[in-house]
């Protein structure tokens, strides 16, 4: 079931919310949690019922492993062994479903074995997300940071439907205390409900109106490069590449907004997952803003244990490269993903090498020049990220290479002519305005203030323009006003219409 499908919006969500609200209102707190767990499992099982057993089995195994780890708290060797074993089982499961065929095919190629048998196992939905979430839980239990002895609470923590399929990757401490807060019998405050609906509407708009329309030029470019490369011009290639940068951002951040909005409707604040990544002034900065919960996971559970920045630059750079290679591989079993992650790692290392010098140089410049320099760095970072997204989207490295060549060959003679597709061009322009003019959804809905990443806050361009043009000090943020109610309704309406008249497109990150 997709968040942007009629069955979810008109049946699942209203029923689940109303029953949950009623149970809470009448003081049936435990029942309300049970209901949420049942709904979450139904939500997952809707996709492919047999795979529900896999999710439940994985939850059961990890719960038992966590109990065991908890009981071994003062016995370091046994704790370490149990942790390695249980994390190993999780990684084996992930590896079996996600990487086995990739591994077998490459072994076949390496040893030139024809027709090597592959498993063709169907990738269980969200396996990468719930595996990582559970590994983080096990590590935290082993470190003695947390403990949980209620199976139903643990199961709800993993399967809570707003974040189950594509994150945000939630830590135990971020979710469970909120779920267990039953001092109030109300499902969520009116403020949470209003913000939740607003955020869900923004996410729906990002997904259905922006991302799904942007998929058109992206598909045209990749199909064109494969079938009729002569018809693709350099401009087409740029339009397709930029469109994919926006598509993947709106697709995934739209999903995150919907997930966070749903969380709010159920009285839970899920962690922020995106914070204007295309406002980043370097690749390292980009990763502090893009898929924040995954970046945090990779930092806490791979980069820091590998040595982080405590053991000298060489170790630090090696740790960055390994972390980013694994991060790339997490996204998919393919060389394009590995290369994509690796190149991001290389750019992060480069930005570390140049960062300090650039910062020293910048601090001596006048403010206007600093602003200009920052804008240039944002633009440059966006171009690098866009070029790397080409690799991420391409089916093979060769296709990515062909598109890169096309981007810079200066050929204007193609007939694909994406530039003349008015709908696409309008959506690209709107996307650019949303990305670089408006505050991001977290700032708009005040959730950024509550986040651990509030150091990323900035003044959106629209507020700067308004300050200079209208001489107003007010900020472009959400308040419960008629105006906001009207545009949120319109955004919902447009998304619903488009959702019904076309088929709901899956979220890109569902494949991971």
């Amino acid at each position: 079931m997709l968040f942007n499908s009629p069955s979810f919006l008109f049946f699942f969500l209203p029923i689940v919310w109303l029953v949950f609200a009623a149970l809470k209102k009448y003081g049936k707190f435990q029942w309300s949690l049970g209901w949420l767990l049942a709904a979450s499992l139904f939500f997952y099982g809707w996709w492919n019922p047999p795979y529900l057993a896999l999710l439940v089995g994985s939850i059961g195994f990890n719960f038992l492993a966590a109990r065991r780890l908890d009981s071994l708290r003062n016995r370091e060797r046994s704790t370490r062994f149990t942790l390695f074993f249980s994390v190993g089982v999780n990684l084996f499961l992930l590896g079996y479903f996600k990487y086995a065929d990739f591994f077998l095919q490459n072994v076949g190629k390496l040893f030139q074995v024809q027709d090597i048998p592959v498993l063709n196992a169907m990738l269980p939905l969200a396996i990468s997300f719930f595996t990582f979430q559970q590994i983080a839980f096990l590590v935290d239990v082993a470190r003695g940071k947390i403990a949980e002895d209620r199976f139903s609470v643990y199961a709800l923590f993993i399967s809570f439907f707003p974040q189950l399929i594509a994150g945000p990757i939630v830590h135990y401490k971020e979710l469970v205390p909120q779920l267990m807060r039953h001092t109030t019998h109300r499902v969520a405050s009116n403020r949470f409900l209003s913000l939740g609906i607003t955020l869900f509407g923004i996410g729906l708009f990002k997904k259905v109106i922006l991302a799904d329309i942007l998929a058109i030029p992206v598909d045209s470019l990749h199909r064109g490069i494969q079938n009729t490369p002569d018809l693709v011009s350099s401009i087409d290639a740029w339009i397709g590449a930029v469109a994919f940068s926006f598509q993947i951002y709106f697709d995934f951040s739209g999903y995150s907004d919907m997930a966070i909005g749903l969380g709010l409707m159920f009285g839970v604040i899920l962690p922020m997952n995106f914070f204007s990544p295309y406002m980043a002034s370097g690749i390292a900065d980009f990763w502090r803003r893009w898929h924040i919960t995954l970046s945090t996971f990779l930092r806490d559970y791979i980069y820091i244990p590998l040595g982080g920045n405590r053991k000298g630059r060489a170790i630090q750079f090696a740790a960055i490269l390994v972390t980013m290679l694994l991060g790339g591989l997490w996204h998919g079993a393919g060389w394009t993903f590995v290369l994509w992650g690796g190149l991001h790692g290389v750019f992060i290392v480069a930005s570390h090498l140049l960062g300090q010098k650039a910062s020293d140089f910048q601090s001596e410049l006048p403010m206007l020049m600093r602003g200009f320099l920052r804008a240039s760095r944002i633009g440059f970072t966006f171009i690098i990220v866009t070029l790397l997204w080409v690799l991420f989207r391409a089916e093979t490295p060769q296709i990515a290479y062909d598109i890169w060549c096309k981007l810079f060959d200066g050929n204007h003679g193609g007939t694909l002519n994406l530039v003349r597709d008015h709908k696409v061009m309008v959506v690209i322009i709107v996307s650019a305005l949303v990305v670089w003019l408006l505050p991001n959804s977290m700032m708009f809905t005040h959730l950024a203030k509550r986040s651990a990443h509030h150091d990323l806050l900035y003044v959106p361009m629209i507020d700067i323009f308004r300050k200079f043009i209208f001489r107003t000090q007010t900020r472009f943020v959400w308040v419960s006003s008629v105006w906001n109610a009207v545009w949120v309704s319109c955004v919902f309406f447009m998304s619903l219409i488009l959702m019904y008249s076309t088929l709901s497109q899956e979220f890109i990150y569902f494949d991971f």
Partner: protein
Amino acid sequence: MTSDLTIFSLRISLRFYVVTVMCLIGLLCSGFVGLNYALNDFGLWRDHAMPNQLYGDPLTAKYLLSQRAIPLHFDSLLIGPSVSANVDVGNIASLEMYNLSVQGTNILRIRPTLEAFLENNKRPGTLVFCLYPYFTNNLKLVPSRAYDDPERSALFSTIPLHAYLSRAGRYFSGEAAYDKSSRGMIDISEVRKDHRPPYAEFAKKQDKKIAALIAQPAFTPHDKIIDPEAYKALAEVIERARLKGYRIVAYYYPLNYRDFTIRQLNGEWPYFQQEMNKLFLDRDVVLDFNTSKYDDIRKSETAYMDNHLNRLGADRFAEVLDDALARLNQR
């Protein structure tokens, strides 16, 4: 000091905000759905003159029209990709024909629409297939909610809105609507003329390709010429139409002579013809417009915009096709 205010800040209570959003969404959706039902632009709920709503998403529009409107007004179809989409079948007097062709589609993509027509039409007429390699390429079916639930999809459809806006735009800029005969023609030369370089430029590229192929022969792999899945789908659809009592006519699209030469040199055309011919029985009719008899079209420098016939060429071809079909009718 900054404050958290928007430009038009008519503050309301949080509870009222939630109620307002819900009510407005309901109001807007019911208004839109009510309007679509009242307009009945796909002829799904009431009979009226043949609707003409092909703007924006012609494939979905033709699918919705195939539920009721097309079978009500026509018994025969022209089916193919973009190269036959711009044939105005209003000029073909010999058959009560609708042009089901859509640009960017192969048989897999058009199949649900064709199947819907075969299902809903009770007066079997003639199915005319335009045979061109694009029609059997490896494009996959694009899922659409319309295929699962046509009525609901039509109620929520933005195609009529798009059509009225496009028509208004064209009216005010003095351009005519592109399907003048309401028979499914999508005039690619008019819709997309500004998308394409002049024919001379295209011809120059074609000439280069011919020279390259002569200098160094290269053959297109067979699975790139005809996709096995598409081929199977075409065979199944033809068989089903035969069983329903339709007369099957197929024609090889008149390739401009440069395109024809290229496809001869790389082996595409002979293989394509050989495989396509296997699909048809003796009682079916297969016409080939790639003979010298049709050189006035094929060798014309003014009949094509690229490998597609332009308006002039398409109208000339419609006459030729009408003539051929009329002769068949006399048999």
